[in-house]
């Protein structure tokens, strides 16, 4: 692969999909675009596995009693759902698929800085996923995705060590990706592409990478300690030797709170692109949105204790964690306001990705605002560990990240596949997802507010109406997710060919054929425009 650059290949321009053939050309590829597609297949598979567990849970919760599955099985279902969705779908979802595909193209590079490391990350990720799945199907896992001690180390009878090992391994994939992105964004930008000409997608991914790199090792340590404690029965976080379970929570949330931003910052990255492209306007307050990403990454590390307001930490540390949590809400608010303002006096088209972006803004606003409730110390005491929290983080992660992921896949689908997607069907699916999502999770806010605790296999009968509503919504949501799966498979072969720039967007990725050639650009681009410079590029884009 280390042949000299050959710019002479332009003639019949095979693209990255056709330049090499055969299964090995995929499994041994170092092309960031192909690795991105490997990741697309993997995370989609994990998404539907995790979603299947969720559906079983929702079915169980139709009745107050445990009649579909036993309480133990229910506990395993929510644990597997959480572990798979968090570490094998949400964290890699946007960065490793869209990020991997687009960052080099957006900065005018031929590939990431370390292509072999990129491929290695996919293998490591798959290894982690396989180990986790093996542990789940061999001995189950019933600790919840949080692995709280001493339950996970002393009382659980399931394959905690195996599942922790799988997550531990997948953590290395995260670190490799983050490291690769940071080095790439710093070192491989095309001539003329200064930091403040970067698309906001790149800024947001840069912030995400910083978190990946600095938070993930702490997860590795804390899971290793859980494994050591479980294997040797020495209580690092449990009691016989004076260990403190609250310390586990500190270290766990030091990773896992920033991990929430690993999940949502890439979603914000996508939405910034979509809003600009479909309003044909630069994102309002570009610098503010860019720095808001960085601020979220930094302040996001200072707030983890808000998961522990009733966990037995000091009231004074609860105080500073609450204060800092409100601080991190400011940059998120800034982003929402700026996206909304971008639409003002724009030229707004209603293509599917834009519908997803609008959905994202609405749902993320609700998710973020309920976060304000949870950050308020007095309010949190009642609603923490209830369905209120579940609804809150699903609004962020499903209403936010998954909507952005779907929007992004639609938006860049012409670039990825060289084909369009069916517009009518995709609008229908976007609408289905939006309605199904709200019907699933809005009742859960009410449930939590009423005091329904989370992780309950059985529940008092007065909560049943709301649970039925939620399950009904979940089936609609499930159908909404299956539709894109089907029509994208169809579109890969049968949809009409896509032009290089179907949306008349400004990014560098649109200035190369669809699908792009192996090295992205036939000639390394020289950047003379700011991001989203519709005015300056109006001739090229044919705008008037």
């Amino acid at each position: 692969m280390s042949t000299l650059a050959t710019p002479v290949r332009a003639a019949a321009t095979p693209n990255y999909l056709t330049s090499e053939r055969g299964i090995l050309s995929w499994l041994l590829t170092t092309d960031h675009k192909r690795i991105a597609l490997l990741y697309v297949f993997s995370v989609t598979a994990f998404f539907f596995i995790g979603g299947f567990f969720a559906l079983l849970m929702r079915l169980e919760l139709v009745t107050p009693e445990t009649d579909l599955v036993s309480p133990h099985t229910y506990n395993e279902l929510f644990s597997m759902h959480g572990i798979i969705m968090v570490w094998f779908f949400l964290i890699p979802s946007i960065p490793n698929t869209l990020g991997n595909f687009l960052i080099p193209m957006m900065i005018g590079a031929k590939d990431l800085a370390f292509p072999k490391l990129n491929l290695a990350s996919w293998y490591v990720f798959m290894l982690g996923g396989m180990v986790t799945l093996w542990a789940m199907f061999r001995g189950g896992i019933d600790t919840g995705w949080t692995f709280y001690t001493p339950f996970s180390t002393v009382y659980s009878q399931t394959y905690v060590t195996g599942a922790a090992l799988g997550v531990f391994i997948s953590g290395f994939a995260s670190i490799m990706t983050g490291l690769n992105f940071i080095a790439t964004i710093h070192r491989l930008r095309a001539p003329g592409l200064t930091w403040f000409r970067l698309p906001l997608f790149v800024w947001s991914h840069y912030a995400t990478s910083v978190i990946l790199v600095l938070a993930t090792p702490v997860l590795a340590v804390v899971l290793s300690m859980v494994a050591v404690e479980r294997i040797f029965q020495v209580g690092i976080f449990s009691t016989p030797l004076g260990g403190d379970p609250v310390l586990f929570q500190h270290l766990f949330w030091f990773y896992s709170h920033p991990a929430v931003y690993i999940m949502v910052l890439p979603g914000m990255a996508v939405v910034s692109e979509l809003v600009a492209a479909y309003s044909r306007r630069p994102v309002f307050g570009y610098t503010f949105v860019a720095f808001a990403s960085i601020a979220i990454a930094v302040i996001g590390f200072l707030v983890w204790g808000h998961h522990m307001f009733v966990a037995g930490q000091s009231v004074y540390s609860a105080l500073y964690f609450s204060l800092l949590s409100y601080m991190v809400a400011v940059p998120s608010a800034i982003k929402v306001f700026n996206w909304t303002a971008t639409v003002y006096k724009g030229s707004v088209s209603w293509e599917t990705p834009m519908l997803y972006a609008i959905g994202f803004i609405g749902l993320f606003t609700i998710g973020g605002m309920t976060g304000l409730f949870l950050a308020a110390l007095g309010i949190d005491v009642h609603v923490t560990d209830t369905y209120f929290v579940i609804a809150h983080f699903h609004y962020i992660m499903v209403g936010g990240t998954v909507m952005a992921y779907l929007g992004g896949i639609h938006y860049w689908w012409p670039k990825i596949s060289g084909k369009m997607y069916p517009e009518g069907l995709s609008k229908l699916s976007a609408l289905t997802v939006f309605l199904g999502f709200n019907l699933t999770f809005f009742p859960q806010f009410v449930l939590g507010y009423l005091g329904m605790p989370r992780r309950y296999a059985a529940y008092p009968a007065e909560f049943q109406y709301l649970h039925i509503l939620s399950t009904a919504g979940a089936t609609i949501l499930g159908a909404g997710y299956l539709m894109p799966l089907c029509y994208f498979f169809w579109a890969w072969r049968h949809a009409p060919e896509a032009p290089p720039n179907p949306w008349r967007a400004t990014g560098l990725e649109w200035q190369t054929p669809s699908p792009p050639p192996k090295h992205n650009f036939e000639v390394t681009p020289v950047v003379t425009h700011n991001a989203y410079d519709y005015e300056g590029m109006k001739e090229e884009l044919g705008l008037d």
Partner: protein
Amino acid sequence: MTDPSALMLREQFGTPEQQRESATFGMWIFLATEVMLFGALFTAFAVYRMKYPLGFDEGSADMNILLGSINTAVLIASSLTMALSIHAVAINKQVRGYLLLLATAALGLVFLTIKFVEYYQHYEQHKAPGISFVSDKPQAAEMQMFYVFYFVMTGFHAIHMTIGVCLVLVLALRTAAGSFRPAYHTPLEAVGLYWHFVDIVWVFLFAIFYISGLHG
């Protein structure tokens, strides 16, 4: 193009300089993750050390300061040979660089050997929590916690050392094969950074485990 560094230039880079800077920069980012990895362990250690000063001091008092000091010296010496080997390759003395790399790996192995001798001594003295731990000291439980951290943290370090020795040996072979030149020896520099970092971690482990309870 006859410049040997150009032959090693990967397609995504424009110039050898860009590639070299990216590689060392990537290594530094990796070291930042390592800081957080060991940082989490140091944080947990700090919490318990603050809660149980007596038990942790007593645990520390039982450490073999002689072996610990020798190991510190060995590791510092290995850092020196590592730095000198890179220097040698940089001034086009590949054979010297090769020998110094072998010396580095050998010192690393000496360190690991001594470390395992110590582990065995702890085991013999029933200071291995989870396997055999006996103590008649009043703070037996807290001492045990001290040893848990001792084994976990030095164990993490020993794993890093093992990886480091393997990397250094591979690089020694590549140096012998003539892969590196003054103009291109980026892998050597990257592994050198890693090696020195592992040394730094040991310096702190030595301080908190061996020195802090020495007076007891």
